[in-house]
């Protein structure tokens, strides 16, 4: 969106479909990736809920494009928490093969598309703690700064820095061990 962001946001507020399409094309891939990385079995549905809430709550938003991006990921994180709580209250309906919190779920189609690279990424991210994964996904996919992530996850910037450092160190060791084992 860039320099056109204010106009796009105003048009979206006025209900212009082109504006919503622009916002969706810009933010849907990283949001969907964040939801995928958090291990949801139906990430598209959660993504749809995220953008519907964006539409619903847009009148309450104020800020620039960076703020808007952080705001959208904050909504995505809240939706994931709600989805996780909802699934926890209905454990009977969960499939035994359904991924739990802390795993990275991808459909067979997605696996086929991504191939071995996708499987490797999935396994490595699955090895992280939930907080490390949360922070690194927001950093890598959401392209958020430490301060922005801190606002989203409601932690201090120092805590976020520590989490991302530990997460990267863990990935680094895993990759190195892959080389050793291979």
């Amino acid at each position, binding site marked *: 969106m860039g320099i056109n962001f204010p106009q796009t946001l105003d048009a979206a507020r006025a*209900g212009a479909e082109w504006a*919503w399409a622009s916002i969706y094309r810009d933010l849907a891939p990283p949001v969907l990736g964040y939801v995928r990385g958090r291990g949801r079995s139906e990430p598209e549905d959660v993504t749809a809920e995220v953008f*519907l809430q964006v539409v619903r709550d847009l009148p309450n938003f104020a800020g620039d494009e960076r703020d808007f991006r952080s705001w959208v990921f904050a909504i995505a994180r809240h939706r994931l928490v709600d989805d996780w709580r909802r699934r926890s209250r209905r454990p009977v309906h969960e499939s035994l093969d359904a991924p739990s919190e802390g795993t990275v779920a991808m459909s067979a189609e997605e696996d086929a*598309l991504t191939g071995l690279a996708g499987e490797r990424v999935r396994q490595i991210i699955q090895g992280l703690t939930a907080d490390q994964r949360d922070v690194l996904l927001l950093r890598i*996919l959401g392209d958020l700064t430490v301060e922005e992530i801190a606002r989203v996850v409601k932690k201090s910037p120092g805590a976020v820095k520590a989490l991302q450092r530990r997460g990267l160190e863990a990935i680094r060791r895993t990759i190195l*061990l892959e080389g050793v084992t291979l």
Partner: protein
Amino acid sequence: MTDRNASTGDMGRFARKLTDRELDQVLGGQAPDEEGDLQQLASFVRDARAVLGQAPDEETAARHLAAMSDMARDADTAVIASAGPTPWRRGPSSQRERSRVMSRKLLAIVSAVVLVGLLSGAAYAGVLPGPVQRAVADVAGNLGVALPGSNAENDIDEGEVNEVDDGQAGDIEQSQVGNFDEGATDDTDEGEVGEVDEANDVHDAEVGDVDEGDVDDSGEGELEDSDDGDAEDSDEGASKDSDDGEAGEDDGA
């Protein structure tokens, strides 16, 4: 595989911590230097971004956008409904609305006036069809306007005749006949019937007495004489007393 699974021997290779600059570069998908492990780490970040950050397929995107558009429309409708029309919207639309309503009212009034005028003119000329002419003449007659219409005169004649006939015949019949029937006739009937019954009782008793005593001895002649005489005496005496008494009660009532 996690950091917890790493052997202590491998840990020595990670002794050097990443600097903040290296960390930012790796997270940006760039290798800070020639170090192999950091290049692999940057490569992983690029792979993660490419694999996880795939855009939704066209069908899914179209479905999501359609749902967003629907919700945006609903939200607009809800806002408009809750807040009412905005000022810029209220002015022109309400003026158009008012002028449209006024035009309709004016048209209705003009139509009604023209219709009444046409009817009045035609009625005054007496060219309306019979029933319509009579109806209009009746209405105008109530308002004190005389319009040509044969029914008006007929109505007057019929009214006078009917009123006279109805008044005289009805009053006489109802007052005389009604009073007579309700008071005198009914009372008289009831009284006479009652007395007749009583007289019959007396007659039966006296006849019985006579029969018991005189039939075998006196024969038919005596029986007829005794019967007639007793019966008449009994009837007259009983009926007169009873009539007077009951008539007096009725009058008093």
